């Protein structure tokens, strides 16, 4: 006979304000099997947990139900408490009377009644719970970082410094990411390259870090502690081990008209190229869509001039497969396409540019060697108008509903830098709100206004049109309740940012959850902000949500700390809630193995006693508990019900159904 204890939490007023917790505890007392029922302000507190522990000991409880917040919140807490006094942690069930009850219902009688039903349901389940013991699985002491931007670089360096092997998989020919394209960084205005490139070099020189540039992940198998990842090493047509980065090929290549994507297509580059001077690895790559040799078979000039014989037109994509204990996703972002915003004339006017393009125009290594000129005629612009929130905070369907977070700060930076370098330039900024939370951020923005005289106009631009070679920017000045038209030479759009689209594929491969905006979902917004709900997968940088460099670096280091915490363990406890076949019922029909996504089910021939001294050899299913993730797909496929799931057995769910249906 089970001896069940029930603990109803007030959660301060979170539950107690709408659920009559005393009544719940009182009513539940008379449930069959319940020997103890109590309510308390904060069950998760030290005192609350002590109360549970004491009750378990005092009343010799065989199972407990905690009516509190979501099990996703404190199930682990209460399980630990139970375990500390010798009750198997899997004899704990949570009735979610906060998120699923008190927080969504207003009527006390109704909420109380529902809470009672939810607690009864949990009691019905716990009565059928069986003690479970977690198994163990080994941990591969190597981490994978997907994406070689500042987030990936920082995470890799931190993990490697702790003594673990790290591979960085970067889809481009060089690591560095978006930060490598930036000119200066806010709020300190240091040069982006000056702070980034040393870190890139550190990565390259670190004995524990292996940079797999120009590579993408193809397939992921396994689970936390033991991922097996197939990586595609795209053909770069240059032998990475031989190329010295001398750039003679770039000089000699006759096909020089390729758009330079590193410079946001503002100028051109040869078919064989090194993306930028400080690229890591400092190895050339051939754009097969542009290379004459690869397209027509005729040319081969770079091969002739290459002193080390690094050019290999025959190179093919290769695949490597490696094992990892943990994976950091740091796939970064891109500015959104502005095709849907014809009011700003981005596609029609060369002198309407995005902020990232402006970064390149202002960068000393950029297409204009750092001299700010208009793309159309190379003239120095005298009036520059910035437009903020282009596609951000847009619920009309053209843009993104969220705030891109970085635009207010970088626009202030651009305005300031322009006014500093070219004091004769007039700078206007149309804004909806200026958002500058962050250390020294608002001070930075105010400097742009007060010290540099940047003209901030509260209001949005309705249209940008061309008149006599001038860009007319027509918008609101809401403070003065005016409509203004500013004759500008250059218009800079603060385009919204979105996650790099390839993250969708990565998320699918990793079975990491992803939201409607393609941002990867963290396990808990506040308490587990760098972890994906998929165990062993961690999130750094904009793939998780819009953020600036300081935040990205912090998040990357946080990821590294989590990864290190995982990799130092030799073994991981596995989820004991796994599928288990009843061999006496199993037909050996193979249907369960057909639906198992993890290949956890195999078949063995086993001898069974038939009685009367006779035996029979039958084919029966066998589940590898280290591989099984406990989804239960097999249990429904099994026609005889031989396959069941520990912790969520058919009988348990059936009795929950029964209890929950009783009004």
């Amino acid at each position, binding site marked *: 006979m089970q001896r069940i204890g029930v603990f109803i939490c007030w959660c301060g007023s979170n539950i107690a304000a709408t659920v009559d917790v005393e009544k719940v505890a009182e009513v539940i007392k008379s449930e069959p099997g319940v020997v103890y029922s109590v309510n308390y302000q904060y069950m998760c507190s030290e005192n609350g947990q002590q109360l549970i522990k004491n009750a378990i000991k005092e009343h010799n409880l065989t199972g407990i139900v905690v009516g509190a917040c979501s099990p996703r919140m404190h199930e682990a807490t209460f399980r630990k408490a139970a375990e500390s006094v010798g009750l198997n942690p899997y004899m704990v069930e949570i009735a979610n009377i906060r998120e699923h009850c008190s927080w969504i219902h207003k009527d006390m009688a109704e909420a109380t009644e529902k809470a009672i039903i939810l607690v009864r349901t949990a009691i019905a389940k716990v009565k059928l719970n069986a003690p479970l013991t977690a198994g163990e699985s080994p941990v591969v002491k190597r981490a994978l970082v997907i994406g070689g931007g500042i987030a990936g670089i920082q995470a890799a360096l931190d993990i490697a410094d702790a003594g673990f092997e790290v591979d960085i998989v970067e889809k481009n020919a060089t690591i560095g990411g978006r930060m490598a394209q930036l000119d200066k960084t806010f709020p300190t205005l240091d040069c982006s390259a000056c702070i980034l490139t040393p870190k890139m070099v550190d990565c390259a020189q670190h004995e524990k870090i292996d940079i797999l540039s120009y590579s993408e992940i193809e397939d992921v198998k396994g689970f936390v502690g033991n991922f097996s990842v197939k990586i595609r090493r795209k053909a770069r047509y240059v032998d990475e081990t031989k190329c010295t980065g001398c750039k003679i090929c770039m000089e000699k290549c006759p096909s020089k008209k390729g758009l330079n994507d590193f410079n946001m297509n503002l100028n051109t580059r040869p078919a064989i190229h090194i993306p930028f001077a400080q690229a890591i690895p400092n190895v050339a790559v051939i754009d097969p869509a542009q290379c004459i040799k690869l397209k027509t078979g005729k040319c081969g000039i770079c091969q002739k001039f290459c002193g080390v014989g690094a050019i290999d037109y025959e190179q093919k994509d290769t695949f490597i497969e490696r094992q990892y204990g943990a994976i950091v996703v740091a796939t970064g972002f891109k500015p959104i396409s502005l095709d849907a915003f014809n009011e700003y004339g981005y596609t029609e006017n060369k002198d309407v540019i995005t902020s990232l393009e402006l970064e390149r125009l202002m960068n000393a290594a950029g297409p204009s060697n750092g001299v700010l000129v208009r793309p159309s005629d190379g003239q120095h612009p005298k009036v520059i108008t910035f437009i903020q929130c282009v596609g951000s905070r847009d619920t009309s369907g053209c843009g993104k509903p969220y705030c891109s977070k970085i635009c207010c700060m970088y626009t202030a930076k651009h305005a300031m830098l322009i006014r500093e370098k070219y004091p004769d330039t007039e700078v206007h900024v149309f804004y909806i709100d200026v958002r500058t939370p962050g250390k020294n951020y608002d001070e930075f923005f105010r400097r742009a206004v007060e010290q540099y005289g940047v003209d901030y106009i509260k209001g949005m631009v309705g249209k940008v049109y061309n008149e006599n070679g001038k860009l007319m920017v027509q918008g609101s000045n809401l403070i003065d309740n005016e409509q203004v038209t500013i004759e500008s030479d250059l218009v800079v759009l603060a385009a919204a940012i979105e996650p790099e689209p390839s993250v969708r594929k990565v998320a699918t491969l990793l079975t990491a959850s992803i939201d409607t905006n393609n941002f990867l979902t963290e396990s808990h917004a506040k308490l587990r902000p760098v972890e994906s709900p998929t165990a062993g997968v961690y999130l750094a940088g904009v793939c998780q949500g819009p953020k600036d460099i300081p935040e990205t670096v912090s998040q990357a280091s946080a990821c590294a700390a989590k990864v290190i915490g995982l990799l130092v363990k030799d073994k991981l406890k596995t989820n004991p809630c796994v599928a288990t076949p009843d061999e006496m019922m199993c037909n050996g029909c193979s249907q369960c193995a057909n639906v198992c*996504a993890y290949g956890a089910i195999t078949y063995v021939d086993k001898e069974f006693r038939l009685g009367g001294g006779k035996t029979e050899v039958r084919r029966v299913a066998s589940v590898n508990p280290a591989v099984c993730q406990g989804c239960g797909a097999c249990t429904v496929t099994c026609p005889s019900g031989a396959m069941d799931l520990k912790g969520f057995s058919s009988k348990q769910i059936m009795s929950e159904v029964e209890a929950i249906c009783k009004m």
Partner: protein
Amino acid sequence: MQNVTEKKEFTPNIVAFCCNWCSYAGADLAGSSRLSYPANVKIIRVPCSCRVNPSFILKAYQQGADGVILCGCHPGDCHYVTGNYYTRRRMSLLFSFLNYMGIEKERTRVEWVSAAEGARFSAVMNDFVQKITELGENKRLTDLRVKEGE
């Protein structure tokens, strides 16, 4: 003797099976965002929508549920990679079959709700409760042999 039986407003009994990773978390988010839905929706947590056996759904009806809704991760986003793809096929066939047996097609439903869709969870539940209220009590999956007057 009771002469006048007051017509009580019908409040349906709704069972929602929610997968632990998306829909249950979505329900949690609905809760923490205080997005209300009727109290007669009660949730059973399952690891994945593919854990839901048709017999659980039928059991719920047997025990007096008026509507059963099954919620999982969006197809392609399943925490267990492919679980909800199987759910989708199973439930497509099961629902079609139940309807073939004369069970009202609105009575059972599948909805994909992600962990980020608290608002959607609440909206789905409100809608489902409304539809079931309109549909009325579940009589067909309980009283097959009940004859007139019995």
